[in-house]
């Protein structure tokens, strides 16, 4: 039955051009440039991790189909999730991490629920959490980008900021915290060029560091370093209505507003001086904002529900980033909000018109 096309006699006779499979494949395709950029940042090793994550995810899906006798590789979900998982792993992780992750993601997280559409936590998020709790060392095996010697990096920018805050060393901004932590900054030439040629005539001065953040020139997960490519992909997906606009917009609004108002306080700066740009460009914020938090299966069904979900995720991300012991909190925040989805579906039901 699952193989037959929608050749029904009954209406409707035509369908919108969006289908579940096309949606998954298109989203996966828009991630490819960011994945390739990740490979150029961290050498071929990143490519192997991505390939292992996708391969094991496809293998898991194949095994699951043998057990469940339903689902199909053609729906694109295994490839999309494998790619997302690979992109959220550190470039220095050993080869078994993506393999265990991919198999766990499909066989356990998707397997328990049965099919596409009935999992109740995002498989990529739960798998990442599982891997981070089981192998914390391997899951923070960061590398310096563009390093021929594959040099080990101590921490990501977010972790560096967190460390400096915990140590109370009192750096004045996130960016100075990074530098004092030994993460090299290489963007002075680019930033200077931008300032002289484009920004100064507009009376703006870009401090050093941001263009590095924007281009991925910092230690991080494979897919985190391509803010510009992720943003370009999101423009395409939003334009084609393949992802919903409510979640990225309100997630971004609540997180950036809180960051702007309160984000400067821990650094001894006044109110309304938080570094929003640094926060959204670092960690997995953009990757999760556009590609994970927008997954329809684990988000509320009504628009009002989705808006509440997104606002809540932004607030939780703010709290986790600024006050928890972990560096990034975006994934955990979304995971926590997912627990509220059944309540939100009840609370924000659409009202019938009588």
């Amino acid at each position, binding site marked *: 039955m699952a193989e037959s096309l929608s050749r029904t006699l009954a209406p409707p006779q035509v*369908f919108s*051009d969006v289908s579940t499979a096309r949606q998954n494949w298109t989203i996966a395709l828009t991630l490819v440039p960011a994945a390739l950029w990740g490979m150029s940042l961290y050498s071929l090793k990143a490519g192997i991790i991505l390939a292992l994550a996708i391969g094991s995810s496809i293998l898991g899906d194949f095994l699951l189909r043998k057990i469940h006798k339903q689902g199909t590789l053609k729906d694109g979900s295994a490839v999309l999730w494998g790619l997302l998982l690979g992109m959220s792993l550190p470039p220095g992780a050993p080869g078994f991490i993506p393999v265990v992750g991919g198999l766990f993601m499909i066989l356990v997280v998707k397997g328990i629920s049965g099919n596409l559409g009935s999992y109740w936590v995002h498989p990529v998020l739960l798998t990442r959490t599982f891997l981070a709790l089981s192998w914390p060392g391997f899951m923070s095996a960061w590398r310096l980008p563009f390093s021929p010697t594959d040099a080990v990096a101590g921490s990501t920018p977010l972790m560096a900021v967190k460390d400096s805050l915990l140590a109370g060393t009192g750096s004045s901004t996130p960016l100075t915290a990074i530098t004092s932590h030994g993460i090299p900054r290489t963007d002075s030439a680019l930033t200077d060029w931008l300032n002289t040629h484009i920004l100064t005539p507009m009376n703006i001065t870009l401090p050093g560091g941001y263009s590095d953040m924007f281009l991925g020139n910092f230690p991080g997960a494979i897919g985190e370093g391509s803010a510009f490519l992720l943003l370009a992909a999101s423009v395409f997906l939003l334009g084609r209505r393949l992802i919903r606009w409510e979640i990225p917009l309100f997630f971004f609004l609540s997180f950036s507003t809180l960051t702007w108002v309160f984000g400067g306080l821990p650094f001894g700066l006044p109110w309304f001086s938080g570094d929003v740009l640094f926060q959204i460009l670092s960690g997995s914020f953009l990757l999760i904002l556009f590609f994970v938090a927008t997954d329809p299966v684990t988000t509320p069904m009504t628009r009002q529900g989705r808006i509440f979900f997104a606002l809540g995720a932004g607030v939780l991300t703010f709290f986790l980033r600024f006050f928890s012991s972990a560096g990034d909190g975006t994934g955990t925040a979304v995971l926590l909000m997912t627990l509220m989805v059944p309540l939100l579906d009840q609370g924000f039901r659409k009202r019938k018109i*009588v």
Partner: protein
Amino acid sequence: MTNRTIQGGIFVEDFYELTQGKTCENTSFPPLAILPLVQGNHNAGRWAVQTGDEVQEEQVLTHGTSDGGVPLHAPVPGYVEAIKDIQLPGGQECSAVFLRFQGAFARTGKKSESRAWESLSPAELLKRIHDKGVLVSPTPLDSLKALPQVKTIDTLVVNSMEPEPYVTLGLNLLEEFAPRVQEAVKILQKIYGPGKLIFTADQKTLGPIQTLSQNFAQVQVKNLPNKYPLALKPILVRVLQLEESRSLILDIPSLLALWEAVVLEKPCIERYVLVSGDSARHPGIYRVRLGMPIAQFLEDAGGFSSPPEKIVLGGPFRGYTIEDLSSPITKDTSAILVFSKRVVNHARPAPCIRCGECIDVCPVGIQPVSLFKSIKAGAWEEAREEGLEDCIECGLCGFTCPSRIPLLEAFKSAKAAHEKEAVHG
């Protein structure tokens, strides 16, 4: 004027460019006319003829019913070859006359003369319309009814809006036959008395409707957006804030059929059918005799420009795929659409991914996904609470579903099962 629109719905393209400027063309006569007793959900009573009978063009074939069932007339002269059960495209079975065409026409080929109707009383006018087998509907794609009895109607709505994409029948006919439409409205005003007169118009029909409305004293023109399913009766009633039992909503083809019955004293044996869609070689408006097999009609209408993936009776959202092309044209055949694969957008059915697309488009605020779940679980009470009975069967939920879940089909059969249960206890 309150500018109320609807929640949900989608803005649609009208595809008027396919039929724009085309004038109505006649098609050939059916060698064997197939005439089902049920014409668009309307029962024409009992057969007045038997197998072997010779009949004249326009001869009455059925006795109508006492509760307003209008008779059916012979579309061509000939003899009754058989009376047997056939299956209609919607799936229901019914008795049908097979009329073999032979002999001479009583009217066709002769000059038609207009008869004066102004001196007739409302009751006489109404009787003439009923006797001529005229059935009317609020849009070209809705089920047909006989005109209601006098004194129950105080609001007359002329609905020129496109009911579904491609189905621009009303607009095409309005551009060609505006004077007849105008006279038909005058006839209705005579029958029902001077009540409220409303013309609905969408973006494309606004021009012709405004010209038409200048011939009436007290008239409102309501210009509504090209948003499906705004033109459908339940939504129109809400948007125009009508009192349903006292309003008569009529489309342009109904008005023309009524005009022919009164002014030409001609029974309903022909109708206008729109052929459109990306696979139709000559999209346009055609004048067809009832009983014409769809295969022959499509051939007359120019056939296909590319291999059709689907031949659809009715609109893209609510119509049915025709499998048996020997099915006849009936009084409610308004549009035959021929679509290629590219337009149909087939996709593999997949599990629900909770995207909520169906919730966003529903014009009556149902959560189709939740309703579907209750029906699948057999929870009738829950299904009712989810709004099973509020569903107006517009088909948008199934259209937008990325997983191609047959939502409308499930709701329709659940409603049918529900009704059966209610009848049997």
